């Protein structure tokens, strides 16, 4: 296995260098069982950690960002000490003894051209150096020089750069660019491009790479710890090299004591600093609270969050993004600061005295908490904060203040939706009807709705907990004072009727489309919406059913009396008119 990986990895090097002799040497090394050499194995493991897909690359695809051919003299002629690691370099050579006397010279004369890396650190920042070289004659110095002087030796290792890489949050980084600027850098960043661009340009321009690093907060914490920093613009690298080891939490969004008390088993298992645990894992998990002030995100999960390095709290950080300098702060961070300040007031001498007096009457008020109490501090923090904001964003986006009929559809090309919408639209016209897609991505065209009468709710629902999704939809249909609410295949719509049908039916006429099992070849037994029908029929004024057979089936199954059976209207000519003409079952309040 390892032999195969070695061959592939060094084969990749050969591809980069285009050097047949090197290829032979690699083959000889492997043939001579040098792959058993621990130092070679270590190099390969490290390469594969950095480039997990390396052994699957085509031979012509560059594996490493070397050689530095074509770069300024600073790089070509003398790789500075901070970026040259002799043992790392020698470990890549088939015959390290030949270079052992003067490894740097050997690298300059042979290794660079052969595509070898001067150090593991160089592997991480090689691409950034190349990018920086487009605008600077001293690209390497520009980057390494940003490390605290006493920590420059770390440049050749992977310590700082590895930390930097998993702290990179490309969505936040991209959000600091205008649309025009993003166009010039080939669009939104992914992790690799964000890291390279940040080291090459972003850090010099004062941009922020990590959502959980707040430069001003870090400087405040440094000051409290009695530590100084020479170059404020490089505060993030300072934290990676110094503050990290001092365990300084660089963001108001994370509370170490709270996190450690709440998730002790997780921290113990990972055997790492709790903040690093949050950075690597917790910030991608919907159920993790980062501080007593809340989780800073809407509560829903995102299976891609970890892979994309998009912490869930970015949703809140990017709220009202145009009102904040994202390179320094955000709504989420300012909100957390404000909430903390409000919370801290409870620790004042006056409050402490008042609480003590109350405790003389009822000692239970001082009963120790299992952990830090969860604090709601609206308008800055609170469990429903995100729902509040989404509701307002939705109201402003919809623009309309009233529609007669709201039709809730799943979105996309769900079976039966377009066929049901057609007669509805024909009867009501598109001006008085709004088609709301609630479950999946899709277009107005796919649902068979006119563009001007179509609302994709997904952008407002994404990432939200189920009960909040329902509350948001409830707010929409109530806000629009809809006289009819019709569910046509929408899962969330059925949920709305099941949960709040009792109250909604007092204000609006509720209807639904019930498809037949035959409409879905994979379905056997009752129709696809039979469970929903059962839950919601009590609130429905009518149900459009796929055909007469289904109407009869439902009538028989529930032994419906005639007055209720008549409310099952088979789709067909005048079906919508018949349904709409049925009298309301209940109207009160």
């Amino acid at each position, binding site marked *: 296995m390892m032999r195969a990986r070695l061959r592939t990895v060094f084969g990749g090097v050969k591809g980069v260098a285009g050097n047949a002799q090197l290829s032979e040497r690699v083959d000889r090394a492997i043939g001579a069982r040098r792959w058993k050499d621990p130092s070679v194995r270590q190099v390969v493991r490290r390469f594969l950690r950095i480039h997990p897909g390396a052994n699957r690359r085509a031979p012509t695809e560059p594996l490493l960002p070397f050689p530095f051919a074509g770069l300024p003299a600073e790089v070509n002629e003398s790789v500075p000490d901070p970026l040259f690691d002799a043992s790392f370099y020698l470990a890549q050579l088939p015959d390290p003894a030949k270079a052992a006397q003067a490894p740097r010279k050997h690298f300059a004369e042979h290794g660079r051209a052969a595509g070898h890396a001067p150090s593991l650190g160089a592997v991480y920042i090689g691409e950034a150096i190349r990018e920086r070289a487009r605008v600077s004659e001293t690209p390497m110095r520009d980057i390494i020089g940003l490390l605290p002087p006493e920590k420059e030796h770390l440049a050749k290792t992977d310590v700082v750069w590895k930390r930097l890489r998993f702290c990179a949050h490309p969505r936040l980084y991209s959000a600091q660019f205008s649309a025009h600027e993003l166009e010039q850098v080939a669009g939104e960043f992914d992790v690799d491009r964000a890291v390279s661009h940040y080291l090459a340009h972003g850090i010099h321009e004062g941009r922020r790479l990590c959502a959980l690093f707040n430069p001003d907060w870090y400087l405040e914490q440094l000051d409290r710890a009695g530590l100084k920093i020479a170059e404020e613009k490089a505060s993030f690298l300072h934290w990676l090299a110094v503050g990290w080891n001092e365990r300084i939490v660089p963001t108001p969004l994370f509370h170490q004591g709270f996190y450690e008390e709440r998730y002790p088993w997780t921290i113990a298992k990972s055997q790492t600093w709790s903040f690093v645990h949050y950075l690597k894992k917790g910030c991608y998990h919907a159920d993790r609270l980062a501080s007593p002030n809340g989780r800073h995100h809407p509560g829903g999960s995102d299976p891609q969050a970890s892979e994309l390095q998009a912490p869930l709290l970015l949703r809140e950080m990017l709220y009202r993004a145009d009102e904040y300098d994202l390179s320094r702060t955000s709504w989420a961070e300012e909100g957390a600061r*404000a*909430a903390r300040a*409000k*919370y801290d*007031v*409870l620790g*004042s001498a*006056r*409050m402490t005295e*008042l*609480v003590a*007096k*109350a405790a003389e*009457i*009822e000692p*239970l*008020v001082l*009963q120790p*908490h*299992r952990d830090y*109490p*969860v*604090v*709601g*501090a*609206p*308008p*800055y923090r*609170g469990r*429903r904060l995100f*729902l*509040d*904001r989404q*509701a*307002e964003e939705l*109201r*402003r*986006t*919809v*623009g*309309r*203040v*009233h529609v007669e009929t709201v039709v809730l559809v799943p979105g996309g090309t769900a079976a039966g939706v377009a066929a049901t919408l057609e007669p509805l639209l024909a009867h009501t016209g598109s001006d008085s009807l709004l088609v709301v897609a609630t479950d999946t991505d899709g277009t107005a065209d796919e649902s068979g709705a006119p563009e*001007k009468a179509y*609302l994709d709710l997904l952008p407002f629902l994404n990432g939200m907990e189920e009960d909040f999704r329902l*509350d948001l939809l*409830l*707010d929409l249909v*109530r*806000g*629009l*004072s809809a006289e009819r609410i019709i569910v046509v295949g929408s899962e969330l719509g059925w949920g709305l009727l099941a*949960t*709040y049908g*009792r*109250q909604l039916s*007092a*204000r609006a006429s509720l209807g639904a489309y019930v498809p037949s099992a035959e409409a879905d070849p994979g379905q056997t037994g009752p129709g696809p919406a039979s469970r929903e029908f059962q839950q919601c029929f009590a609130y429905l004024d009518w149900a459009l059913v796929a055909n007469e057979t289904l109407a009869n089936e439902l009538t028989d199954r529930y032994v419906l009396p005639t007055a209720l059976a008549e409310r099952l209207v088979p789709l067909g000519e005048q079906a919508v008119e018949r349904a709409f003409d049925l009298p309301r079952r209940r109207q*009160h*309040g």
Partner: protein
Amino acid sequence: MVEAARRPDITAVLIAHVEQTMIGVSFRSMLAAVRVAAEAALDIEMLVVLDKPDETTREMLAEVDTQGARVLEVAYGDQALVRNHAVGESRGRFVAFLDGDDLWTENWLVAAHALCAAEPRTIAHPYADWVFDERRSLSLPPDQTDPQFDPATLRVTNAWDSLCLAPREAFLDHPFQARALEQGYAFEDWLWNLDTVRAGYVHRVVPDTIHFKRSRSGSQYRLASANQSLTRPTPFQDYAWLQEWEGTREGAPRTAAESSPLG
């Protein structure tokens, strides 16, 4: 009608049900706040209202009249109607409610009165709602004058507890609505907040004050939540009304029709 000059400054209302021994704790907390208020030269009327009490709770409060409290017994079984009744019986210019298992910090009546007396149409809320016993949490309610607070969001999320201090007319003009759980309506305090904001009252928080709220299973709030209840319909839930209302408010947020792709 009681002459204004002879009216107490505040009527402090303690509402009891079946709290049994715990009611003593709340009454003692009320006494502490009344004592501090008296030291500040405020005239306080104490009113204890028992709503469908059990025998033990009634026994516990048998001698509160000797402490200066007036005792009423009613049989509404509905928090909203009990409060309305208490307001009708109150004589104070301001009314402050305390639930039968909760506590105030001793400065509550003085500090809340100072805020409300200084600004007409002000409703005072504590700086913190400190939940204790079965569940523990802290809620620091918003001040309506905070520029970051958007009252339009009140239709989605309630911001304040009903254990406030407010001018008596705020309760008289906007009585609490009875809950109707079978129809799915509850949260009378939330609706009252919406009604009073619509009427131009301003909900403020009082620095350095806390309400200690006992969390117990079977509370009215938990029952209403489990029942998927909503507030009764209110204009706040209507986009058209909200848009018009925002247009009448100084410095209101942009209207809904702005920047709308659909509008």
